[in-house]
């Protein structure tokens, strides 16, 4: 059974979601992961999108490219103002958030703002959008990204979205009493954070991946869990559902 890295990411992300949760999803892979979860083990999972949508259904072949198109409102349950959607997260109503990033550091901090200095950047990236809000306000955040050395840097140039900041206790000290980046899902494996140091830790490898591959693609030392598991490969059902959702393969 062959599959692309993107398909692998979607499947692994979908498996993290529970039936009794609310999830804050962005467009692209996160949206596909949520739709997949809903069509498999989590039919009651409620999706929230920053453009102002609660409980919409993803339409196969009509995948949105931004978080505020009517493609995301199909059969929605409610369409609140954007600000109020985020306030629901601030109030504690959103369990899980998915984000990605151009740079991710060993504490799970994310940069989507600038490469280089802020005022005269080498590369001006699009910016936070809702990523900072999701990382600050959802009860738990999962980073979903391809695993590339240029992304996994010791220190991000700019903390757009807070992970563990400088390590254990730092979020609380900053006033963030809730939320945390709980895990990182890449096309190589599943990662958590070491409770003592707050640093990235490899928990499981996907079929056929090795610790060496992870080390090669990471710009800092990755901690290893006492026992590194192996994830179950995507099933035919999971892949079939994904490929039906994105038949044009815009994102897969």
């Amino acid at each position, binding site marked *: 059974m062959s599959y692309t890295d993107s398909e692998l990411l979607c499947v692994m992300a979908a498996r993290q979601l529970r039936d009794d949760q609310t999830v804050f999803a962005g*467009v*692209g892979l996160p949206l596909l992961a949520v739709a997949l979860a809903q069509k498999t083990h989590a039919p009651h999972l409620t999706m929230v999108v*920053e*453009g*102002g*949508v609660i409980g919409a*259904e993803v*339409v196969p072949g*009509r995948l949105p*490219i*931004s*978080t*505020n*198109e*009517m*493609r995301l*409102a*199909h*059969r929605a349950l409610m*369409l609140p*103002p*954007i*600000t109020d959607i*985020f*306030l629901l997260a*601030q109030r504690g109503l959103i369990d899980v958030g998915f984000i990605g990033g151009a740079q991710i550091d060993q504490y799970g901090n994310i940069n989507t*703002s600038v490469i280089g200095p*802020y*005022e*005269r*950047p*080498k*590369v*001006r*990236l*699009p*910016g*936070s*959008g*809702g*990523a*900072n*809000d999701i990382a*600050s*306000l959802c009860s738990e955040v999962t980073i979903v990204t391809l695993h590339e050395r240029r992304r996994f840097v010791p220190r991000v140039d*700019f*903390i*757009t*979205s*807070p992970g563990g*900041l400088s390590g254990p206790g*730092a*979020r609380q000290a*900053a*006033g*963030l*009493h*809730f939320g945390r980046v709980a895990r990182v899902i890449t096309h190589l494996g599943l990662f958590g954070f070491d409770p003592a140091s707050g640093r990235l830790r490899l928990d499981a490898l996907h079929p056929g991946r090795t610790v060496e591959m992870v080390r090669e693609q990471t710009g800092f030392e990755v901690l290893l869990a006492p026992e590194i598991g192996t994830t179950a490969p995507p099933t035919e059902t999971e892949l079939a559902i994904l490929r039906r959702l994105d038949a044009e393969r*815009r994102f897969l």
Partner: protein
Amino acid sequence: MSIRPADFIEARRRRAAKPKGARDKRLEAAEAVRLVRDGDVIAIGGCCFSRTPMLLLRELLRQGRTGLTLVRNLMATEPEPFLVAGAVHTLITSWMGPGLPWGLSRVLRHYVESGQVRFEEWSHLGLGLRFRAGAMGVPFLPTLTMLGSDLMGVGGAKTMACPFTGETVALVPALFPDVALLHVHRADPLGNCQIDGYVHMDPDIAAAATTVLVTAEELISEEDTRRHPERTVIPGLLVDAVVEAPFGAYPGECYGLYETDFGFYDAYAARLAAKGLDGVREFMDEYIYGPATHAEYLARFDPAVLARQQQYARELVGGEPL
């Protein structure tokens, strides 16, 4: 002089000084945009590809306003012509990009990386709360978002110890735009606005701004408004000008009426990739400076495509499974 962030006193003074009686506010786009001055801080309604007030933005460029600050929660490509025209010195937003399939904005990169234009970044909620504080007439709102991140340092947010709990909270300063440009589904001559689907941040933006210019897909009567007062999302007493503009957000989307013309944005991206900023200049000559009227502008699009985008929209928001 634009209103300084958090200066709720000056902001209120300007609002309170305006006559508020119910009157006919219908204007042509060109007349409405004459209410904008060089140097104004301009808030753009809608979000990204949704309900962008394209007609008003084109008119703003046609009238050659300069020294502008553009503010919008999420920006797509609509600021690019302003950058190329040298009309703006600052962008205030949480995100700007041409959309997922097209990567980064080459135009944004050129002007910001070269230091010609300032990019003031906020989180999406952070900027939304700046509009809301303005709408409420208070100098700031408290929030937990952005705490601990480097965004706290770039736009002027502050932290404080909550006097009730002692906990640290972030404070974002109210934003009071000089002008709000909005596109809505329906408006009556008094300025009462109806929006279908996403309202995005438009009601807050309208109340935060000093002057509010609205284009509407359809003009309705005061009687229509009175028949369904629950549909009014922006009260006429906030509005200065109402302009009739069918397809006023095209090639972007207007919820339930027409979907974004992604083919158009593909072509725009291709032209930009091939010719860089000159590609944008070509686009501006063809679509902004060329057409003398909104009708002439719309005539540049294939009617079959417009009809198709309308059909897509109906399918998506009909509520029936697709």
